[in-house]
């Protein structure tokens, strides 16, 4: 139940009591509360749980993590240099 799904903000609508909006989850569109991400802008990717946007996804951090993970592969690549160079 703590699963949260990434989607893209396609509409922002202030409503009584909270900031709401619409988020596109790969074609499925849901109404989502944006109260916890007041800085949200149209087109931002957010991570949503139970109709509540928990955070804006950080592309920078995503790229950094991937780079770190790939670097692990590079350690392996060094150990198997022939393999890697033949690509």
């Amino acid at each position, binding site marked *: 139940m*703590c699963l949260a799904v990434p989607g893209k903000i396609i509409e922002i609508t202030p409503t*009584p*009591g*909270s900031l709401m909006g619409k988020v596109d989850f790969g074609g499925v569109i849901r109404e989502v*509360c944006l*109260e916890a991400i007041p800085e949200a802008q149209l087109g931002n990717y957010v991570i949503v749980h139970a109709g509540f946007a928990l955070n804006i*996804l*950080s592309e920078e951090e*995503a790229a950094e993590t991937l780079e770190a993970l790939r670097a692990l592969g590079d350690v392996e690549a060094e150990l198997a240099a022939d393999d890697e160079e033949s690509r």
Partner: protein
Amino acid sequence: MKYLDEFRDSELTHNLLREIERITTRPWVIMEICGGQTHSIMQNGIDRMLPQEIELVHGPGCPVCVTSLELVDKALAIASQPNVIFCSFGDMLRVPGSGRDLFSVRASGGQIRVVYSPMDAVKIAQQNPDKQVVFFAIGFETTGPANAMSVIQAKALGLKNFSILVSQVTVPPAMHAILGSPTNRVQGFLAAGHVCSVMGYWEYPPIAEKYRIPITVTGFEPIDLLNGVYLTVKQLEAGTHEVQNGYKRVVSYEGNKPAQAILSKTFEVCDRNWRGIGLIPDSGWRLRPEFADFDAEKRFDVGSIQTQESEICIAGKVLQGITKPPQCPAFGTLCTPENPLGATMVSSEGACSAYYRYSRNEG
């Protein structure tokens, strides 16, 4: 979406697995706290990919499973009342109370609706002014803000026919309970990524320090989970006990401040009884007095409740990582998803359900 495919990249998975194998020199027991992670681990076969030395045990992070039997029985009593529309997340419907579940209440005429979001229940209340609409607000920290927003919205709208039955629990007290138990086997934790997206991970360094245990904030994709295991094993092998963030694209140290403000405006800390585990002090939230009008426990008098738990079910031990589901004599025989003895067999985050669904028949 951007990067998502890469977090499912099989080459990266392969690299991580090889690294984990390379650094592992002896047996380690690591607990993933979140039941959503348990299911992702089984679904992706991560438990079978890891070196034999690494044992993953499954934690209590399943809100459906730990909601106390008394609250489930209260939900059943409220949902049975004629003027009530009872709204719930779908997972809760098959959870056994003392003798019946919400499905059987629905079958005998109760109005029960499954909703995606607590705020959908507020809409149902607006559309049905002549009915009392109650939402079963279960959850860990991740679901807290969504549950809180439902009463904030209901208050702003001046709704008199909306209330929530709160079963909010929190992770750090459960970690203390597990680590402080004489039967504890856990040597490292994968902390629940989405709990931390709300709360941050500033609550965890004192736990890591007190029990000298490494903790890694971990996401849900196969690569996130393997990265969580990798970072934890690396620390275990080095004898360190830091809190590390393996889910940086979603989680920051301080968490989401506006979400935390929503929580503290709406809820206050209370003791909670965890199903199968027992009372854990200061392990949950209840509505603040300012929101008392929206508290279903105050709005509905359901009389005194006599709970009766299954005598066979060992869900409590499963939830603490002491016993694995197939070690239960009832697993897959007396207890199945169609005919569950405990909540861990029905919830999409329950460990018994994961073992059953993905055919892990050996403990």
